[in-house]
């Protein structure tokens, strides 16, 4: 949920990376953190298990620049993808302005992708949000691996609404900023619509 501060001339928006376990959500944030210059980012916070799985969330605040004299900030969060962390996922989704769904392109993760997408839809609905009516983009990650599902097939199964979608290799950064930019754009245009 955006926060417009006329006093400090700031606008904050919340973006959530969603997707099944090990699809590469945290890897997206780490890459963004590494490639952003120091004065436009805050600390990255990762609440993770000892084996580097997200336990509660990752958080990265980004200050991208100004629009009409207002500093625009994006607060990026990832959810924990493992199925049994559903209660935490619901909490992270609270007040979200836009969602990036990171799908794992590997054939054997197809079912996990579908399950996670349904879970996203349901958890949004529980707080009165409709996935089909909010800023949303999809990233097809791990395109570097040999056993990936073709993008047309991924789109057919995961993207019936045909939202913007990007092929990515989060581990090397390919597609990471394209995905974020597209969603950020949509989020701001949505704020414009509402104003």
């Amino acid at each position: 949920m955006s926060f417009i501060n006329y006093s400090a001339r700031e606008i904050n928006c919340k973006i959530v990376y969603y997707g099944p376990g090990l699809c590469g959500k945290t890897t997206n944030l780490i890459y963004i953190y590494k490639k952003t210059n120091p004065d436009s980012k805050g600390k990255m916070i990762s609440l993770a298990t000892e084996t580097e799985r997200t336990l509660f969330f990752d958080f990265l605040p980004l200050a991208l620049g100004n629009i009409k004299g207002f500093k625009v900030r994006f607060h990026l969060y990832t959810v924990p993808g493992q199925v049994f962390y559903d209660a935490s996922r619901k909490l992270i989704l609270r007040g979200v302005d836009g969602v990036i769904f990171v799908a794992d392109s590997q054939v054997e993760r197809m079912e996990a992708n579908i399950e996670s997408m349904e879970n996203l839809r349901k958890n949004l609905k529980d707080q009165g949000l409709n996935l089909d009516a909010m800023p949303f983009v999809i990233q097809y990650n791990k395109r570097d691996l040999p056993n990936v599902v073709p993008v047309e097939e991924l789109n057919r199964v995961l993207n019936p609404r045909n939202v913007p979608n990007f092929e990515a290799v989060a581990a090397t950064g390919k597609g990471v900023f394209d995905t974020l930019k597209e969603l950020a754009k949509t989020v701001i245009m949505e704020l414009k619509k509402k104003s």
Partner: protein
Amino acid sequence: MPDSGLVMYEEEFKQIDAELSKLHQLANAKVTFLVDKNGQLIASVGETQNLDTTSLASLTAGNIAATGGMAKLLGEKEFSILFHEGEKDNVHISLIGDRVILVVVFDQRSSLGLVRLRVKKSSEVFVQIFSKIMDKVDKEKENKSSRSPFAEITEDDIDRLFG
């Protein structure tokens, strides 16, 4: 649609800042700050120079969200006060109304009793300020005089953001 985002105006911001300062002083606190339930920092007062207030805000909200989730499972409405005791510093976290969180960091120069008392007093003031803000937001929506900085942005403005 669920309720729209939080908006902060100059006038109320000054009142919030003044009340946070007052609380900071009267409670002998190190730092006082207000966070919106989604983790965005609203205002802070005190020894914040060496403090990552943005991260603190996000973790505070996560903390409240997690205990709120626990409360639900236990059939409680919400745990409206959290207290963390450290070796040197202590943190008092409390809910103001249903969307704002007040945080007070204090050490041995103060005490939990004093902090509790002052937080209670300040909470009443904050509740009033925030209800004024909500009224204002509703009114602005009605008369559509929308001073929103977003009303006239273009795709170019957005592209420029990413340089």
